[in-house]
């Protein structure tokens, strides 16, 4: 009898050791949560957008493509000679889709459920901005079916649809403004690393992005100068209000990404064409941007030798600080978009005023603080040709300079739209869009458009493949 009881107990033990409750508990993830509050998602999506989307791999490649800098080491040296493949922009694609867009989608949906309209509005602004970076760089990209986890093979939407369609980028910004204007007790604080929870400034940022996007559609029937001017009037009043991520700081794992690149790899030297452009304008920013100022030995894009150590060419790194901000949209860009709109409306005086305002703001933002130096630049005839002589090319050139050093992807976009400045690389034609990443070709091949990156995107040449 006794032994029987022992056996029964033993068998009971064996079964309890593999009951579903026991095994479920064993399998539970003890290290990571399955749900998190909104205030823990926002700092990630903001920081990630600045660091890995605007400041990601593609921004380095575009710095050399757009000839803001010249790649003189490793991949950047090769890329400067147009050596690239379908894997070159993998990281950028992954940064935008699973990185930004998925987490933003989670945040937006969760915010809607919790009636936290502030987070919803902020999420929509950031969503629109990230999605714009994607379509500007690749053309047709997944948008309506993207980043939800519901579609394993998302369809590619045309760029025209993405910008202007229902629930397209411009619609998202309008929805964001509505949400940001809706009363809610839940407002972000320190977790909002861009505006510290100031929803008024977020509304300005949404309007700024509208101006940026409509301007980018400048070669298409959707361009509307009045809409740009209207959006700009509801946007930033100074650079202090601009859409800029300024939360980097000195210290391990907290620095500006381009500063980390400078520390770890040192790929770049002064670009000969950019050096010539600035020196032609006597631009005071040259003394700041180039380590050796106007005494620099610049490197020619496309033919420079390998020179990581700076033995041959001058470097570009003194200007880049560990706490340098990453710009999403500056006040000077807004004013230049406004200037373009006025000029295209044949309103030269307004255009010129906005243009000069933009130039001064850009110089101050770059670190030129001496009013005499600013005034001297603004009286340079090649820079400030006078109200009657202002051309779109003047505006575009200043935009191109203003995007230095971190907004190279934007500079590349505007170059494609405007053809300004005229850039030459002996290795062939500059990229007009990025090759679709290998990860997408491998896993969503049937939806990926087959066009080679030689074709332009919709707002460039109205093509969609």
């Amino acid at each position, binding site marked *: 009898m006794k032994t029987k009881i022992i056996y029964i107990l033993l*068998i009971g033990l064996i079964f309890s050791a593999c009951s579903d409750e026991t095994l*479920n508990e064993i399998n539970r993830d003890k*290290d990571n949560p399955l749900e998190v509050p909104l205030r823990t998602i926002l700092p990630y999506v903001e920081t990630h957008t600045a660091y890995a989307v605007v400041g990601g791999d593609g921004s*380095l490649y575009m710095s050399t493509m757009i000839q803001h800098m010249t790649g003189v080491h490793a991949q950047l040296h090769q890329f400067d000679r147009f050596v690239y493949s*379908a894997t070159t922009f993998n990281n950028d694609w992954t940064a935008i889709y699973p990185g930004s867009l*998925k987490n933003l989608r989670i945040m937006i949906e969760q915010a809607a459920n919790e009636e936290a309209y502030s987070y919803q509005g902020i999420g929509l602004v950031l969503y629109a901005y990230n999605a714009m970076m994607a379509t500007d760089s690749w053309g047709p990209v997944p948008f309506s079916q993207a980043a939800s986890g519901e579609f394993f*093979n998302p369809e590619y939407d045309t760029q025209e649809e993405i910008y202007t369609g229902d629930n397209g980028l411009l619609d998202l910004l309008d929805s964001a403004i509505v949400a940001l204007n809706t009363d809610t007790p839940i407002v972000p604080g320190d977790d909002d690393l861009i505006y510290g929870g100031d929803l008024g400034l977020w509304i300005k940022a949404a309007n700024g992005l509208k101006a940026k996007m409509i301007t980018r559609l400048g070669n298409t029937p959707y361009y509307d100068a009045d809409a740009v001017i209207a959006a700009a009037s509801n946007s930033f009043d100074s650079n202090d209000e601009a859409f800029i991520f300024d939360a980097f700081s000195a210290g391990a*794992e907290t620095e500006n990404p381009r500063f980390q690149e400078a520390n*770890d790899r040192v790929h770049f030297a002064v670009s000969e064409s950019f050096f010539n452009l600035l020196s032609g304008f006597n631009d005071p920013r040259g003394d700041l941007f180039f380590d050796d100022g106007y005494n620099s030995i610049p490197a020619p894009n496309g033919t420079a030798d390998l020179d990581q150590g700076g033995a041959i060419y001058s470097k570009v790194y003194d200007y880049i600080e560990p706490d340098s901000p990453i710009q999403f949209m500056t006040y000077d860009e807004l004013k230049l978009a406004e200037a373009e709109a006025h000029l295209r409306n044949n309103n030269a005086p307004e255009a010129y005023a906005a243009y000069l305002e933009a130039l001064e703001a850009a110089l101050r933002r770059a670190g030129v603080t001496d009013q005499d130096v600013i005034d001297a630049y603004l009286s340079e005839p090649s820079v400030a040709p006078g109200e009657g002589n202002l051309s779109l090319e003047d505006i575009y050139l200043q935009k191109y300079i203003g995007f230095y050093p971190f907004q190279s992807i934007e500079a590349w976009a505007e170059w494609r739209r405007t053809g300004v400045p005229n850039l030459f690389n002996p290795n062939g034609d500059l990229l007009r869009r990025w090759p679709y990443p290998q*990860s997408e070709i491998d896993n969503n091949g049937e939806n990926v458009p087959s066009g080679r990156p030689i074709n332009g995107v919709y707002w460039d040449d109205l093509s969609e493949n």
Partner: protein
Amino acid sequence: MRKSLLFLSAFLLLMFQTLAQERTVTGTVTDESGEGIPGVNVIIEGTSTGVVTDISGNYSISVSSSDAVLVFSSVGYATQRVVVGAQNTIDIVMEEDVQQLTEVVVTAFGIEKEKKALAYSVQDVSGEKLENAGTPNTVNAMQGKVAGVQVNQSSGMPGSSSFIRIRGSNSFTGNNQPLFVVDGVPIASNASSSGAVSGTDYSSRALDLNPSDIESISVLKGPTAAALYGSRASNGVVVITTKSGKNLKAGQFKVNLRQSFQVDEVSLTPDLQSTYGQGSGGIYSPTASTSWGPRISNFADPSVNAFADGNGQYVNNVGELVTPRVYDNVSPMFDNGTTSITNLEILGASEKFNYAVSGAYTTQDGIIPTTGMDKINFKLAGDYKLNDKFSSGARINVVVTDIDKLAGGSNLSNVLFTTYWAPRSYDLWGTPFATEADPYQQIHYRGAMDNPRWSLANNSFNEKITRTFGNVYFKYKPLDWITVNYKFGADVFSEQRKEVYALGSGFTGGRTVPPSGGQITELTYNYQQINSNLNMVISKALSDDFYLDFLLGNELIDIRTKSLGVTGNGIVIGGFDQISNTSAQTTTVGTSQQRTVGFFANASLSWRDMLFLNASGRMDYVSNMPEANRSFFYPSIGLGFVFTEPWDGRPEWFNFGKIRGSYAEVGQPGPIQATQVPFLSAGTGTGFTNDGIAFPTFNNLIAYQQSNALRDPNLEPQNVTTWEVGVQLELFNRRLGIDATYFNENSTDQIFTVPLAPSSGYTSILRNAGELENQGWEVVLNLVPLQTQDWEWNITANYTRLRSEVISLAPGVENIFLGGFVTPNVRAYAGSPYPVVFGSRFLRDDEGRVVVDNREFVNGVPNSSYGMPVQNPDDGVIGQVNPDYEVGLSSSLSYKNLTLSVHFDIRVGGQAYAGNTRLQKLYGMDEVTEDRESPYVVEGVKGYYSFDSDGNVVVESEGENDIVIERNQQYWQIAMDAIDESNVYDTDFVRFRELNLTYNFPQSILGGGLIKNLGVFFQARNLALWTKYPNFDPETSVGGASNFQGLEYVNLPQTRSIGGGINVTF
């Protein structure tokens, strides 16, 4: 399901009800001349219970049933089976075995079986062979010794990881290494992390075994052999039996001392050019990373070198005037390493008790200064026999290991990177590595990377492991034909890692003025495995012709791990290696738990000792699967037929012949927490930065991002179906043995992280998909060409031919990434052998000829790549990793007490990406870059490509290439470097792996005194290597012990060792 379990348990219960008496059977085993034979195994059939005859051939064994069958076996004699019946004394006359080979092998759960009764392939390695290999790593010692087993040692550094695979890979991305079972209990054998291209290699836990303590290793190759072990056995099982006092007769006492010592040296160093110096474009630059400068002989010529002083000297990177010359920067990096292994074992036995105590001390100094390993092994084993019915015992092992190692791969602190490719004009060892004012302000010929000498002096990488594993068991025989066994095993270890990148280290971007950065990582990894195994064995003769073995049991395995790591970035006080001395700390915690509960049964039926049928089944319940798919069943069945037994007209020379066939299914569950998509502590980074951003360091904010890895909530177990057929022949008085096996393993419903289009929002989903097939031949050939009174010559060849093919991946998924760089990398490709190297390729025309760039001008500017190979704009497969076949060839020749044994490994086929050779060309350091100025025409056709309207590449060629170029900087650094395929090489080799010469002093000299046995030996390892693979050892892999093999990239080198030792028995 539950019902059948209940039934099973009820059956178990019933079985316990019937008890019976136990008694002792004694006897003497003699040969045909009447002499007692010592060392004969006397085993109760179907159990692991047995004794060994003493020096006079006497034995005594307790049996609990008159139905019990005693099996008497000894090498060289025919095995005999006797039913005990009523006898108390059974004397046996053994007949010399002319008919069959009887080899007893250890199978699942430590049960010994005659090899001839098996329906599947099992191969043994003796402890002696492992010792003779002269390596402290047991897995490395198995290299080439077993057909179907592949061992890759990641490097020759002390404690480096090894990758072992049996019959190829069953899983695309999961574990492919076999289960290790020591004395009947599974233990951890893999590295706790592996498979990175930069960073340090972590030792495999199989390293903790003491090769000198191993009695024998049985390799259960296929799932058929291993089905009883359940899900963990789908990659085969390595069954290890350690030494014990079991084989000693009562009253015997033995002390064995072995000491070996060897000197290790680097096996290969790269072939470098010695004509050109530091610089680029033919111009000297004191900070260039490359050697594309002027000829070193022209360095002092002011018309060539702006730094020349015109008096035969030039100014170097520290501003000194130096005379140009060619330096050997590589040799000073390598020292002679040493390996010393001391092993002491004490064995003893009495009537009721036997024991074994052993201790080993291994100390190694690596071939690069600062590297080394100290390892201490202790073992205690004891068996106690209370009476004929009850016995029990325990095995306890304690291991303490301490490894000092180096960073490898693309790590910026890798000491070999700028040692191998320091310009020949640069005096690496004569130029200071830090400024006098600040020891953390490095001086080096190039930026970003650490000066190797500075790195050795300041960075450190240490791993300490303390481990205890062992078991206790109880054995109860209620009846002489029933045995109940219970075994409880545990394996507990703690790994402590400390890695220091000193203040100013290039790895942390610290080579600034003043020095910055620095990183300290402390990580503790705790592992705990508990194993409980209860089983019952029934062995019964059903009739004169039929005999049945039946096994029924339950097993519980519970594994828990916990890792706690702190990484401190930004060292404040240089040289003070404490986390508290860093400016920002990140903590990581990893917890994992898993449990498997299994119920199993096995039945073996034999008929007239010639027909053997075996069937088994196992049911597992595992925690790491969704509730609905948590349990699964694995069956196996096998049949063996000794056709020589009934064969009447059999020729004299045909001693033994058997054919066998078997079939099994084994399931494999998914990884732990296979069904949840968690949020992870947030961080971000890019491909061009090391540190990135980490929360909560960043602005002191807690932030989360959702994992990019989805998990299928309906995951099902992965299924491996396997069948094998084999033939075993013993011919010519057993001078020739052939054992050939054909196997086929098909793994379906692979559980793996299927890559997703990242636009879906996730980069992968863990799900079932895909099929992998392995098939191949294993042939073991034994030959005894010479056998006389004094001479014996043995040859063993192990031939393995393995074909692994990815039949399919997930729908829409063409390939998956296993490891490597953006390109090249290692992948599994649907419809291709597993795995392949993937990367950029030569552009080729329809006939496969290389297309050479025929564009003399591009955009009106001369094309610098004119006449050089063109890169195909589409990447593709550029190499097959697995060899066509491998042969391990062992031979030993004995004359009286002198034995010479050698082992060769041969590999034919297979390719790898030679990352070192690529860098060596890129930097202008490879021997092939010595010729930069003579005219050269690339073999191929002239042409270029365009795209058609669908975006496909269209090759436009215009006939055979005749463009004359120089193979200059542009050629190697730009044109060829862009083509990964240009650095894929065949990994074929012939390696003289081992040599051992042993002399045992004859008894006539020892004179029967205190010393019973004395042997001296000389041994060598990796004596020679013949290969076309350039510069480095084709066997290294930057992937360490992971599925990611076939990519070499600044790996740490292999070693060649020569030494000897002494073996004394008291």
